[in-house]
């Protein structure tokens, strides 16, 4: 297939998003909430990179910031060699044909007043793609592609089940010339057997259409199933990043280990030891110095509190941001 060199479709470069939050005390300066804090990683064309973490880790904000749906505070996002931060709104809008999002909640991400056909056609109308006849044809094509049918195009969103609505969401995102999709918890609101349908569909479409996915989810089993590589986030920073199978088999970061130990067992015979994390997640407004995981980590020592650990490689396609692990003090 030609060159072996990795084809990087997207590069996130020291991306930071800070929210200003009003201080609860009168007359005080607003406090800074670093939802996404100095995040850097690359995405190869055709891969699925999963982003996992618990509430407040910043994964949703990351997805939106990458797509410039919310303005980043600093850093850059480079798509196909082009810096997105340097584009004006019109130029960015052009690119939205190629990079876009599948939203989380199938129950609220579709305008209840529009029919399915109108919803799927809309992105094409916005970007002036094709004639009205061509668009109608494409709508039927897309419906079939996601496993629905032509007679669904006159129905309203509330007349569909959650799984079907999510398919409509996907069809809508594909109506343009999509190359990269950010999927923000696309199956979290769905039942298990329906999740399976949608995940299979996403995988199939990726292979057929040569897409790249950034898959954001809190469901560890789902992320492992669909991802080639994964990123584990905690309080706005990347704790660990690398090959999915490798990380699930050999988690390095203490947070990753705790996270995986908390996954419910796969059978009633499995006796699992859950690593109990002490303390509570610190308020992102009042972060202690050093490693963000410090106050809850069973291995935290003085050196951890000195500075924020950097991501360093510990194997082929495996990086971790833990000072003690990098020094070989823990494994």
């Amino acid at each position: 297939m030609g060159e072996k060199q990795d084809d990087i479709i997207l590069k996130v470069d020291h991306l930071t998003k800070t929210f200003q939050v009003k201080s609860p005390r009168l007359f005080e300066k607003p406090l800074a909430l670093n939802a996404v804090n100095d995040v850097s990683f690359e995405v190869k064309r055709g891969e699925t990179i999963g982003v996992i973490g618990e509430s407040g880790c910043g994964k949703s904000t990351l997805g939106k910031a990458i797509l410039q749906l919310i303005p980043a505070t600093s850093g850059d996002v480079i798509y196909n060699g082009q810096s997105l931060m340097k584009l004006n709104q019109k130029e960015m809008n052009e690119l939205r044909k190629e990079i876009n999002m599948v939203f989380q909640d199938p129950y609220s991400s579709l305008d209840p007043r529009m029919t399915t056909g109108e919803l799927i056609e809309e992105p094409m109308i916005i970007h002036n793609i094709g004639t009205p006849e061509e668009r109608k044809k494409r709508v039927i094509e897309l419906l079939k592609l996601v496993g629905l049918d032509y007679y669904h195009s006159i129905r309203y969103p509330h007349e569909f089940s959650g799984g079907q609505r999510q398919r409509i969401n996907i069809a809508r995102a594909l109506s343009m010339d999509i190359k990269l999709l950010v999927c923000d918890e696309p199956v979290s609101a769905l039942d298990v057997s329906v999740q399976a349908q949608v995940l299979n569909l996403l995988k199939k479409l990726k292979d057929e259409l040569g897409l790249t996915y950034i898959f954001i989810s809190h469901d560890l089993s789902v992320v492992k199933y669909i991802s080639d590589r994964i990123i584990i986030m905690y309080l706005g920073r990347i704790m660990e990043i690398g090959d999915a199978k490798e990380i699930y088999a050999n988690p390095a970061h203490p947070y990753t280990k705790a996270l995986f130990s908390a996954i419910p067992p796969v059978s009633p015979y499995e006796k699992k030891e859950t690593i109990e994390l002490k303390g509570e997640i610190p308020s992102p407004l009042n972060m202690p110095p050093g490693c963000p995981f410090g106050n809850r980590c069973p291995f935290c020592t003085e050196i951890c509190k000195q500075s924020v650990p950097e991501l360093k490689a510990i194997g082929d396609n495996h990086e971790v941001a833990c000072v003690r692990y990098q020094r070989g003090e823990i494994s």
Partner: protein
Amino acid sequence: MNKEPLLKVDNLKTHFNTATGIVKAVDGVTFSLDSGQTLGIVGESGCGKSVTSSSIMRLLPKNGHIVEGSILFEGKDIVKLSQKEMLQIRGNEISMIFQDPMTALDPVYTIGSQIMEVINAHQKMSKGEAREYAVKVLKMVGIPEAEKRLKSYPHEFSGGMRQRVIIAMAIACNPKLIIADEPTTALDVTVQAQVLGLMKNLQKESNSSIILVTHNLGVVWKMCDTVMVMYAGKTVEYADVKMIYSDARHPYTWGLLKSMPKVTDDPNIPLASIPGTPPDLKLTGGSCNFHNRCKYCQEICKNKCPEMKEVEPGHFVACHFSKEELVEMERRGGND
């Protein structure tokens, strides 16, 4: 060894009247639960698991009625009790933990007053005693600085902490049965592990029974002794948890087990999904509710509703065909 079960539900049917017809939300649910045991009710949205819990608590909306069946709690049929008699039972002998910790607590009252409200409703205590007891209960669920936190409001707690408070309210009166309706669905996975661990410990200490309603099979493996699988308002399979895992007999249960992504799965094999969607509950009853999605569907399935059969001691299945017959069908090419 042959104690009477704490709870025995027999052919429960709860129907709702709507403008377009009768919604048979629960249409034939049968199970039993012993003291100190945990039953998992598993199913997907719309299968009727939440309505089953509401029926046991007799907390149904105006247009919902228990039309058939019995709910025997310690030998007494709850269905026949008046609302006044139910007040004695709710919060006291049977209590409930709801799904969403963000909205299950009243935001304008301190958690202390909410816990004491439950205590005062069922036990005669002085204000001081009730306060002490509330602190004790908060400590039991692992809330740090319990004394101080009595005065806190719900919004000052995180989701996991709020759920602990709700658990505290549920166990305050030492109920014999706790119904937990998706108690950890809205929580992060690490918090979920903590809360489930807490529930298990509390259960060991008090020997209460738990009904755990969930759609997450992993939680079932971790917490439950017996499992009841529901589909479209009916019990389709009911057995010991290990039997369900290794020897499930209903095609829906098979589908459910196969469609859950597990970390041990091979990502190259597509997840087995069940094609189609659950039926409209106004149209069910004339056939096997699962037939239009079942790959083993035969003529009889389209016309007759299957009965619950005890296929081995303690293992009940509602399917026209036995496992051997289904396997044979599969071998011969299935029915597509």
